[in-house]
């Protein structure tokens, strides 16, 4: 059906396995069609679309980990991080976006865990896109009701006397867990500390790693 093959720039594309080997599903087709129509109508430009995809691709848990490592070595920064994550991130030249994010600190007495029961709100500017399980029915349903059992399914067991606080994210307020600094890390510098901070520890389903 070459007559429908709209190559309007007169050259042959090299094969792009990552793009073209995806199955041609209905919603993939819908997304491509939508993107083309919005560009043609001038609602968005192709450059803006590419830049937006690059921007989200660049976001990883490394951003959040930098904030946590700084908080572990600097108590006043930690206080500012708890009060206003977005402003504290700006101090380290990290753009946390416009939606307010609150820091919640894990201590010997309190463990925080974050969920979005209604959908998938998540501090994606600081830890990337949410994993599938965060958006799953099981996690969204049960975390607010039986957080200790859910934590157990992630291999995280807390002493009975530790209070578990569950935070339900919304479109208007998100949360970043400040995990407890692991024991045996006194001699580590900020970069080494950041390596111990995992995505899951900033969601609150696990602890930060202990040094190898």
């Amino acid at each position, binding site marked *: 059906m070459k007559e429908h093959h709209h190559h309007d720039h007169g050259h042959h594309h090299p094969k792009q396995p*990552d793009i073209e080997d995806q199955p041609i599903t209905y*919603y993939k*087709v819908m997304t491509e*069609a*939508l993107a083309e129509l*919005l560009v043609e109508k001038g609602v968005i430009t192709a450059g*803006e679309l590419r830049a937006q995809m690059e921007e989200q691709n660049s976001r990883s848990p490394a951003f959040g980990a930098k904030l946590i490592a700084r908080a572990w070595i600097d108590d006043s920064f930690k206080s500012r991080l708890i009060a206003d994550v977005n402003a504290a991130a700006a101090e380290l030249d990290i753009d946390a976006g416009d939606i307010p994010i609150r820091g919640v600190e894990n201590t010997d007495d309190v463990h925080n865990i974050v969920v979005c029961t209604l959908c998938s709100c998540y501090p994606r500017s600081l830890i990337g896109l949410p994993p599938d399980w965060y958006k799953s029915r099981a996690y969204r349903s049960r975390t607010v009701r039986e957080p200790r059992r859910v934590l157990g399914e992630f291999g995280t067991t807390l002493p009975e006397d530790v209070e578990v606080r569950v935070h339900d994210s919304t479109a208007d307020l998100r949360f970043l867990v400040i995990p407890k600094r692991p024991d045996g890390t006194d001699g580590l510098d900020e970069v080494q500390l950041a390596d111990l901070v995992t995505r899951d520890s900033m969601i609150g389903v696990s602890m930060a790693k202990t040094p190898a």
Partner: protein
Amino acid sequence: MSDFGRRHHDMGGLDSDPVEATEHDYAYWEKKIDAIRRLLADEKRKMFTVDEMRRGIEELGAKAYDEMSYYERWAASTTNVLIEKGIISIDELGRRMSEVEERLKAEASE
């Protein structure tokens, strides 16, 4: 607690299966629909709020909510709301989808 009035997406506190810690690397088209939604909602455009997005997902109905993948729901909601707002028409979308499908199939068989 009574479940009267609870809608399908409002699942906090209900019983469910154990959490399986699954994840996958997002496909190119999934990242693209994510980027489209963010652009439509940005300061420059303000055409599509996150609340409209979620309303569009919830209106897909319980069956679709359970059977479609996460970004499939995003694509469906974004498209439906843009049609509702008159930014695209259902006819031009249908025509363009046919063209895109032909093109992708041709490229895949090259």
